[in-house]
């Protein structure tokens, strides 16, 4: 019996279980770029309007940092810039999550053992999961190529776009397979692999945020490679080999580890811990600290790195406008060179704030994870009041963003200050710019809490609000949305401090809205039944 015996049967079995989930992933990932291309055709019909947009994008390091560089002002080039890099990140998530679900999670739940007792080779589950994941990438790439050609884009670029998403799928299928080998818990494997995808995204965010001096960071990122494939902008086909190489090496490494370990075991055996609780673990807050501390530190460190990258890029902002006197004039009216960097930092902390909101929502929805995981029940059956338990997690969703934004702002300003020789002054300026974002983040914290209290089955909506804020804030003006829709995002009410003055009233209103949302959530949670799983 070969170690791959049974792969075919298992592949069909996985497809049977995955058809809906993968169908949704693939259709959304394929439809968004095609719809975006279609929207650009309507919004920017002539070359002049597209060049204007391209100039705006090029002058905004924050935009290129989030979405990747814009290499060509054709419809295809704009589509690649607008939906390619973010899409590639989500493709990476699809690949790692699908791989881990059908390898480590099957082992952890014991279903793998049941299957392993049948005629099934040792490597068949890995091979089957890989077949399904890469298969999804092939289908996605094919639909994309056909769809983009269908709306009238050139074949070569469309093919590069489709193959790029397939390349990301292959590379991250390998990353997922490898992450699944290390620990016994699927949740840890998922954390590792999603963390790797997030790190790859951060790397290219740094690399795409400034001039050529930082571009090497994007070359280190499998997500950054997507822009470097240059769909619709003189395709560099050899970049595809990078993904194949990464995918092949990670998969071979995963197979090598898998053949040396027991089913169910991790490459790292679990270590014993203390037999007694330390003094800090004696209250709901002490427990919450244990559950949240790792992620608070990780998010703070990650966003501090991003802040540092922005700080390093800020100095080159002036240079980037050399070839664009009109924009330069506008920025100079805002306050000259300092005005230019201030505007840059306002935009940069805007992005950091959006990412921080993702942390805030996750921290607050930990309440729901605990409740539905039946771990809230034993705590609520002790002398811990409900509201006290809720606050123990809520605190991390409220104070965590303050810490994250403050550290990211400080690091960002200090980095820029170190280049320009004014560490204290710049650190204070950017710290201020970052901290004014806090009330807007709190509105999202409050939204998550209100939903948790009122309608725990609808907490997913808080992610919807976050995505909406992201789209409105980063793209609303480019896609020419009306002003009232832009105002729906809490982030559009944050004053552009320090580029403009510090307006207190909008901040006070945002704080008040957050407080009401948190209050409503707490009051509703006090009154409702606790889930029984």
């Amino acid at each position, binding site marked *: 019996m070969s170690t791959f015996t049974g792969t075919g049967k298992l592949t069909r079995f996985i497809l049977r279980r995955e058809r809906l989930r993968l169908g949704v992933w693939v259709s959304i990932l394929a439809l968004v770029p095609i719809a975006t291309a279609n929207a650009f055709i309507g919004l920017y019909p002539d070359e002049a309007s597209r060049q204007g947009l391209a100039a705006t994008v090029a002058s905004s390091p924050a935009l290129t940092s989030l979405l990747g560089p814009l290499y060509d002002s054709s419809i295809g080039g704009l589509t690649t810039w607008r939906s390619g890099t973010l899409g590639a990140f989500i493709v990476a998530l699809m690949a790692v999550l699908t791989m881990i679900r059908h390898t480590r999670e099957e082992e952890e739940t014991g279903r793998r053992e049941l299957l392993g007792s049948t005629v099934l080779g040792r490597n068949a589950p890995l091979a089957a999961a890989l077949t399904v994941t890469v298969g999804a990438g092939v289908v996605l790439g094919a639909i994309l190529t056909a769809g983009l050609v269908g709306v009238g884009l050139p074949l070569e670029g469309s093919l590069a776009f489709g193959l790029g998403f397939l390349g990301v799928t292959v590379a991250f299928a390998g990353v997922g397979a490898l992450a699944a080998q290390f620990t016994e818990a699927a949740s840890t494997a998922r954390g590792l692999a999603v963390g790797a995808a997030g790190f790859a995204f951060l790397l290219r965010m740094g690399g795409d945020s400034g001039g050529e001096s930082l571009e090497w960071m994007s070359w280190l990122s499998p997500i950054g490679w997507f822009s470097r494939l240059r769909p619709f902008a003189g395709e560099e086909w050899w970049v595809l080999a990078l993904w194949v190489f990464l995918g092949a090496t990670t998969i071979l490494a995963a197979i090598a580890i898998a053949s040396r370990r027991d089913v169910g075991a991790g490459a790292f055996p679990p270590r014993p*811990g*203390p037999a007694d609780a330390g003094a800090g673990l004696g209250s709901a807050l*002490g427990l919450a600290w244990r559950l949240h501390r790792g992620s608070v530190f990780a998010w703070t460190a990650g966003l501090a790195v991003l802040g540092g990258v922005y700080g390093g890029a800020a100095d080159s902002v002036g240079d980037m406008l050399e070839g664009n006197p009109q924009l330069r004039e506008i920025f100079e009216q805002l306050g000259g060179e300092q005005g230019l960097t201030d505007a840059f930092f306002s935009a940069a902390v805007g992005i950091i704030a959006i990412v921080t909101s993702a942390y805030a929502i996750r921290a607050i929805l930990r309440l729901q994870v605990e409740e539905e995981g039946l771990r809230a029940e034993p705590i609520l059956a*002790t002398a811990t009041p409900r509201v006290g338990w809720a606050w123990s997690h809520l605190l991390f969703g409220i104070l965590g963003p303050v810490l994250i934004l403050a550290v990211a702002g400080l690091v960002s300003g200090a980095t820029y200050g170190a280049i320009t020789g004014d560490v204290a002054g710049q650190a204070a300026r950017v710290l201020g710019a970052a901290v004014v974002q806090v009330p807007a983040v709190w509105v999202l914290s409050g939204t998550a809490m209100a939903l948790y209290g009122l309608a725990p089955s609808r907490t997913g909506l808080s992610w919807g609000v976050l995505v909406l804020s992201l789209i409105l804030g980063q793209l609303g003006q480019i896609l020419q949305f009306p002003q009232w829709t832009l105002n729906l995002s809490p982030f559009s009410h944050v004053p552009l401090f320090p580029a403009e003055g510090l307006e207190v009233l909008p901040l006070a209103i945002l704080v008040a809205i957050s407080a009401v949302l948190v209050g409503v959530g707490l009051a509703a949670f006090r009154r409702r039944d606790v889930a029984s799983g």
Partner: protein
Amino acid sequence: MSTSISVSGLVKNFGQVRALDGLDLEVATGEVHGFLGPNGAGKTTTIRVLLGLLRHDAGSASLLGGDPWSEATELHRRLAYVPGDVMLWPNLTGGEVIDLLGRLRGGLDSEKKARLLEQFDLDPTKKGRTYSKGNRQKVALVAALASNVELLILDEPTAGLDPLMEAQFRACIEEDRDNGRTVLLASHILAEVEALCDRISIVRKGKTVESGTLAQLRHLTRTTIIAELGSDPAPVAAVPGVHDLRLHDHRVEFEVDSDRLADVVRTLAPLGVRSLVSHPPTLEELFMRHYEDGEIRQ
């Protein structure tokens, strides 16, 4: 004698489903009370109402003299709870969870904790995610038993324990009863309830169908008699209150209503009894009867 738990006419609906339909439950202070019923009968729902996790729709519930919903926090200081499905935090060790839960309740007897860990053969240094179902159950049990509380609420606490550990559990509960602790033990394991409980409430479809001491409930039921006789056993069949008579030559086996036992003995005596076995109904039979009768009546 004071009352620790008093529930009457409790109603709880989940949408269209009526989980509790006028349930009654009285637990006297210092007794071990068996709360018996099949899965889905409403045992866990009742416990969750008593713990203030669910709000009831009608009826009344009182716990340790207080209101389980509005005074939950103060009352929880005096009780410990073992859920039927024990879930632990993946990164916390069993020992940490035991200490944490004890501290959140109002104190832990660390000597007793050490003794219980030994008794239940539980390694407290393992992380939550690595425990089996039985070991997770043990973590919650040790945390509850070692807490300084007056009331234990246990929801099917031995599900997942092996017979050896079940025996340890029984010994612990007996010790606690002798020390004056009140225990509410929800279970569908009849032998366990039979061995441990002073009084029993049987629930079915959200209603209490029977409540009392084991002796009182037996009074309502039939005794099984197996006899070998010297002559034809036909006259036995004529005694009112005899059911399910089976004959094998001179061997006879039947059930008799407990209040007709005297008549049966009088009838048997002249028939030349060679051997006689009589046993009271096991809880198993009692239980089956209630639910079977229930099904027939519907």
